[in-house]
């Protein structure tokens, strides 16, 4: 395959392109879901093809084709070249790429048990047992359990001489119980909502989540929510659990720190960013204890890889340091705008799509608190657990999140349960109200398998390390 890609790149060089790269991607995916004892999803999907990116006369073109035949690849390369020529008809200035070492390397996901070698009957057996045990009470209207696996082989070659092969395995799963009492619906999930937790690991990741140990508590809490009080409409000190903090970081720091958004190139769909370049090293994003960084090198985390889809090596870089906005997620095209080299965040969701700046593992550094001490230190608050609702404006300022379940905190103790809990705020004010973060004992990387961005839409699998965190005087309960 590398020879074929090399031949295509040689042909493009002969046409005088400024730069070109080819990505061969072969992905196998398996999806399984049991709903109320019925296996309603059991499918395998394979997709193979090549994407060719061409920079000619300072303008981009991209073409992709579901083929690996050399003749087809050259046709796609020519289409990419012609498209770059069309782009040049409406360019303002030439695209400039940051310098980049041309690596020759190979990377593999750490994996103990290839999920595609685990018998399907074992996976279905586990999901059926979860579904059956969730549904033992008639108030549980929907018992769902799912697993998803991805195996990707990709080869990246460029006209600069890069030649990188990567094998990435991703595994994830989870379950939920939806309770219904004739008028209202309440749901609890494990280990996270929206199909569970994910990692760049093998089936051992599924086994380590010990699903069966958590079935009873999920079922019982879903039913308890039916008779819980509504979350009050008021202002409270709040503690947010680790998985919800992951989404808070995702929406209010990860996306706005994508430099392509900042430069306006995502405005047509997802919007822009309040983290403007003039605020770099100046914007007080959060309180002094807030440290957020990108790190694509965490072994097993869902946003980890060896090299991004521009051939830039995975790395760690700060975004917020001691509350100050100090960095962005960048690409070879955007990094020179702020006088830097790419920090390696360009990824495409397949051979057929162009790489975009995507989150890797965007993490909130742990603080010093034990969770019990933090709750004990809170006189009048609410503990928010596990995402249900997410919404944020197109510059990532005004957000509103809902969670599956919350508990009142009174005089340092967890009390009654609340249903339909929401909290809302403005990003910098919210993060500047952060006064306590739990320590590394409570810190965990949460996989987010469904981050949407771009046109045509692309789905990225990213992750966020976080631990329970406290914020002061936050508006809660705005659902009425």
């Amino acid at each position, binding site marked *: 395959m590398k020879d074929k890609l090399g031949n295509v790149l040689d042909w493009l060089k002969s046409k005088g392109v400024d730069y070109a790269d080819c990505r061969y991607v072969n992905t196998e995916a398996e999806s399984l879901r049991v709903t109320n004892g019925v296996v309603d999803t059991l499918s395998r999907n394979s997709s193979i093809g090549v994407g060719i990116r061409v920079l000619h006369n300072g303008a981009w073109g991209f073409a992709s084709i579901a083929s690996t035949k050399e003749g087809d690849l050259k046709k796609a390369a020519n289409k990419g070249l012609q498209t770059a020529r069309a782009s040049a008809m409406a360019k303002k200035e030439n695209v400039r790429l940051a310098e980049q070492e041309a690596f020759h390397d190979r990377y593999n996901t750490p994996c103990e048990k290839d999920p595609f070698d685990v018998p399907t009957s074992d996976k279905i057996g586990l999901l059926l047992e979860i579904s059956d045990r969730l549904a033992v009470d008639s108030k549980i209207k929907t018992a769902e359990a799912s697993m998803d696996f991805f195996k990707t082989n990709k080869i990246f070659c460029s006209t600069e001489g890069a030649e990188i092969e990567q094998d990435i395995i991703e595994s994830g799963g989870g379950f939920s119980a939806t309770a219904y009492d004739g008028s209202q619906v309440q749901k609890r999930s494990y280990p996270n909502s929206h199909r569970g937790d994910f990692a760049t690991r093998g089936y051992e990741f599924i086994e380590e989540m010990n699903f069966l140990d958590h079935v009873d508590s999920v079922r019982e809490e879903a039913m308890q929510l039916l008779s819980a009080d509504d979350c009050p409409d008021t202002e409270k000190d709040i503690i947010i659990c680790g998985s919800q903090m992951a989404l808070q970081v995702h929406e209010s720091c990860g996306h706005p720190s994508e430099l392509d958004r900042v430069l306006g190139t995502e405005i047509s769909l997802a919007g822009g960013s309040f983290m403007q370049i003039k605020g770099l090293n100046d914007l007080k994003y959060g309180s002094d204890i807030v440290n957020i960084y990108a790190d694509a090198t965490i072994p097993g985390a869902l946003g980890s890889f060896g090299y991004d889809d521009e051939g830039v090596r995975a790395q760690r870089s700060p975004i917020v340091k001691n509350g100050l906005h100090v960095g962005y997620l960048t690409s070879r095209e955007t990094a020179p705008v702020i006088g830097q080299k790419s920090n390696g965040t360009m990824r495409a969701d397949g051979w057929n799509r*162009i790489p975009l700046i995507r989150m890797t593992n965007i993490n909130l550094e742990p603080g010093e608190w034990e969770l019990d001490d933090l709750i004990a230190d809170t006189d009048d608050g609410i503990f928010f657990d596990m995402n249900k609702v997410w919404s944020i404006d197109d510059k990532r300022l005004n957000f509103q999140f809902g969670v599956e379940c919350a508990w009142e905190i009174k005089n340092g103790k967890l009390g009654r349960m609340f249903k339909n809990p929401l909290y809302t705020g403005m990003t910098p004010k919210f993060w500047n109200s952060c006064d306590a973060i739990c320590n590394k004992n409570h810190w965990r990387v949460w996989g987010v398998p469904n981050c949407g961005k771009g046109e045509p839409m692309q789905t990225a699998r990213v992750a966020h390390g976080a631990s329970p965190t406290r914020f002061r005087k936050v508006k809660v309960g705005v659902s009425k």
Partner: protein
Amino acid sequence: MIGKDKLFSTFEKVVKTSRADETEIVYIGEDNGLTRFANSTIHQNVNESNARILIRTIIGKKIGVAATNSISLNNLKATLRNSFEIAKYQKDNEHFPGLPGPADYTDINTFFESTSRFSPKDRARYVKKVFVRANRRKFTTAGSFATGDGEIAVFNSKGVRCYQPMTIANLGIIAMSDNSSGYSVGLSRKVEDIDPAALADVAVDKAFKSKKPKALEAGDYEVILEPAAVAAFFEWIAFIGFGSKAFIDKTSFLSDNIGKKLMDDAVTIYDDANDTGGIAMPFDFEGVPRKKVTFVEKGIGRGVVFDCTTGHREGVDSTGHALTADEQGEGAMPLNIFIEPGNKTKEEMIASVKKGILVTRFHYINGYIDTPRAVLTGMTRDGTFLIEDGKIKHGIKNLRFTDSLLRAFSDVKGISKDRGLIPPWWGSVGCICMPTMHLGSFKFTGTTDF
């Protein structure tokens, strides 16, 4: 484009080798181009030639699904074997009634040569027109212009032979100044229906009129919602309200409310995939002809859409709204949603408002707050205006809403006679066709800085 004859003859060869009781092959081929622009320059220009071929095999009541993106005979036969092996591992699905047999579907022209031939250079010419138009009034633009063709075929061992070639063209524009923005969109199967200059003018006009927006307190306001704003509700409601899974799971507001009054008498909402005024598609991904389904008729809950499996479970026929076999766990979904038009113009509705808000569109709506009450939250975007004494007064900074659609649609003061076609997230097999709506009460619960 491969064409009906070649696809069917290939599938015939594959299905002949199947050891399953029933076999289905669904082909979705696409050849799409998309030109993306921002800061009045093209920054992405992409082409994709791809296909999805899904093979569903049935052994008794066990179902296996495998998919590939290669049409080669060897690959299809390997995918068939894979599907068969998966089916062997399955448990019986008692709700599955078997694959459907052949049925006549409406003959609709959904393919236009002009769109199919549209090249990257043609798209660049259109986009340049947008730049020129906006630059004249000193606005920059961002947006995307997609054109493409494709074909969908459904073939099964019980004789279903459905084939539909199609094209799509979709231009979305955001015009911007330092402190304002405006939006417009054009969608059609025929590229000549897209007028880049006219669309640019609409976006620029909104950005011009909303310059230096003023802050407005959150609260309960009368609103005029333009088609893109109304459509954003229904991208969510399609999933949480009108689909068969939500209905069966009791999470839909229609679940226990068929025949009950849910909205204002003026509101009739339906799905009609055979209406060529929308983005028509005459059969679903099981090869069942798409029927017109009314969700809400004059404010009264009427029904939801079904595929073969969920329909059988509920004791009704499929309405022709099946998703692809790998997605059927999500149940049936409506992909062509319409609200019946009224008899007013947007201007007449604005003129009737003492104090209210005109919304061009919403951003990042989420509908999981309380699905039985259809509570949604989201932000306004790209052109939000204060109306006072029947006139647009000035632009306002964006607002967050959190409200029940059932409550908001229970006080409808007017519906426009014109409707706009809005591209949904599910792509070229459908659309959302909405009028401008005048609601008596809508709850805004938050503000932002721009």
